[in-house]
């Protein structure tokens, strides 16, 4: 019997009692210890990690090339306490001589930044103190989010314990309709299986539709594996992956594909051709419905950005819809490129000009409003449509506000019309 992608990558990273590499085949359900290729934290999760690291009594991180710290959540510093958290992280990075500490001016939203910078390679095992660490599954890496203490121990030893997950394979068929992208596919999928549909399991995204989906769309899908309770959201290494990492990843790597005869907990077939642009209603990401069913929803804010949809491809989609038109007078449209490189490229392509001329606000990279931190928090009674990944009660601000999740096309169209809308309503 063959192996799933999760089993293969974990197998290659198994270590023994003393942390020495002892790769061997594994099966779902086993408890193993594995070595991490990348250990990640950000400005709101690192403070606890650094405190616990100190309690461990270990002086140096296991490998200063493999511990990555990014100031993205409450940075540029949101307030004094956040400034102190970023400062603490900065001091640690300097004292430890970390190769990859990203501060304001170089930083981007971590899960947009790391793939762009080639810090994660196919076949890697990545752990991060952020639930959306699963994003790197799109690169064919086993990447999973954990708490700050798990990450503190990983920083010290380079090792974590894991239960090898069962896998649900989701196979997508058919050509995507107009304005339908990775966000719509994943919202639809979470709508089908629910917010705990993949609890304790890995997801594999496969099928002809995925084969032709650009890396940006795959990253969006893998990013939201956690919203179905998934431990990881994996995509087989293929030509798209190879092209993406070429010139970015500067170290040797071992790519993997799932075996044809791997054992899956479940195989789900999805007809992607009949999926319309989706919107997830408050207050769960599983409340996905066609955007056409949300046409009565007036909005106060539209957010285009985040680790889910802050990439250049997402901004291009938004610009195609916003260019030459005006954001509705009752809507605050906030656009946040995910990294400095994306921001610069968008500038060079004239996207930023199009956004500003349309009456949208454009921000330096930050997680900002996604978690109700800054740069677009909602007041009581306000509603936002957002390309972010969560819409729990109070996620973007006041507990009496609402967040509707969508892709960049719907977010842009909605910003123009003042209510949730599809691009076709704007482009006639």
């Amino acid at each position: 019997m063959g192996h799933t992608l999760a089993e293969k990558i974990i197998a290659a990273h198994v270590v023994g009692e003393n942390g020495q590499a002892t790769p061997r085949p594994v099966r779902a359900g086993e408890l193993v210890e594995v070595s991490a290729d990348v250990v990640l934290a950000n400005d709101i999760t690192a403070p606890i990690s650094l405190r616990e690291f100190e309690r461990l009594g270990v002086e140096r991180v296991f490998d200063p090339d493999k511990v990555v710290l990014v100031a993205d959540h409450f940075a540029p510093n949101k307030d004094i306490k956040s400034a102190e958290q970023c400062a603490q992280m900065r001091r640690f990075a300097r004292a430890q001589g970390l190769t990859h500490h990203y501060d304001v001016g170089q930083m981007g939203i971590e899960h947009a930044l790391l793939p762009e910078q080639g810090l994660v390679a196919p076949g890697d095992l990545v752990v991060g103190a952020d639930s959306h660490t699963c994003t790197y599954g799109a690169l064919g890496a086993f990447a999973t989010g954990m708490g700050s203490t798990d990450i503190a121990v990983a920083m010290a030893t380079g090792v974590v314990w894991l239960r090898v997950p069962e896998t649900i394979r989701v196979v997508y068929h058919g050509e995507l309709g107009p304005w339908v992208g990775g966000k719509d596919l994943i919202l639809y999928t979470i709508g089908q299986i629910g917010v705990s549909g993949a609890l304790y399991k890995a997801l594999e995204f496969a099928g002809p539709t995925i084969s032709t989906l650009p890396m940006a769309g795959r990253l969006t899908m893998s990013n939201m594996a956690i919203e179905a309770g998934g431990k990881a959201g994996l995509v087989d290494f293929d030509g798209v992956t190879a092209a993406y990492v070429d010139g970015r990843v500067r170290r040797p790597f071992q790519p993997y594909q799932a075996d044809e005869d791997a054992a899956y907990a479940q195989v789900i077939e999805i007809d992607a051709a009949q999926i319309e642009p989706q919107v997830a209603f408050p207050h769960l990401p599983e409340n996905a419905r066609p955007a056409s069913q949300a046409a009565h929803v007036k909005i106060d804010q539209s957010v285009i950005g985040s680790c889910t949809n802050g990439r250049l491809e997402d901004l291009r989609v938004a610009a195609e819809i916003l260019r030459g038109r005006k954001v509705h007078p009752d809507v605050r449209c906030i656009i946040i490129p995910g990294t400095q490189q994306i921001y610069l490229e968008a500038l060079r392509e004239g996207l930023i000009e199009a956004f500003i001329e349309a009456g949208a606000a454009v921000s330096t990279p930050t997680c900002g409003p996604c978690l109700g931190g800054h740069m677009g928090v909602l007041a009581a009674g306000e509603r936002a449509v957002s390309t972010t990944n969560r819409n729990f009660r109070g996620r973007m601000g006041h507990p009496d506000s609402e967040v509707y999740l969508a892709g960049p096309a719907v977010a842009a169209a909605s910003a123009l019309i003042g209510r949730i809308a599809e691009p076709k309503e704007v482009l006639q």
Partner: protein
Amino acid sequence: MKLTGQVWKYGDNVDTDAIIPARYLNMSLPEELAPHCMEDIDASFAALVQAGDIVIGGENFGCGSSREHAPLALKGAGVACVVAKSFARIFYRSAINTALPILECSQAVQETEKGDTLTVDLQAGLITNARTGRSYQTAPLPEFVMKIVQAGGLVPYTRERLQAR
């Protein structure tokens, strides 16, 4: 490890934004977070919770963000144990790692009300409701996981292992 406490009951999908809203993530000490625990879903919790109380929840407790601030806020508030129908996996790990005892038992949650007194025997996987007199047997925590909790969390557990090498 036997714990007895008064129950606070919540539903399905209690996410970590509900347990501790993001606006408080510029802090990280349990005592700083505790006053804001459950603030957006139960304004009475932080003020009225007593040390030793037990929180019970439905499916997928602790879903959403990985913030370890969630189990820390609960611990800081004095919560001795969380019993849920099921736990989201990051929260499950972080609760163990921060030595917040947890147990999964659907029936116990289903038949227990806010204000009841529960006794939880972690090693045996036994839960007893003092009001109804009913007892529930559930799978205890796996041995390896129990070791981490008994050591006082992942850091003390790891320190012991590193010193033994």
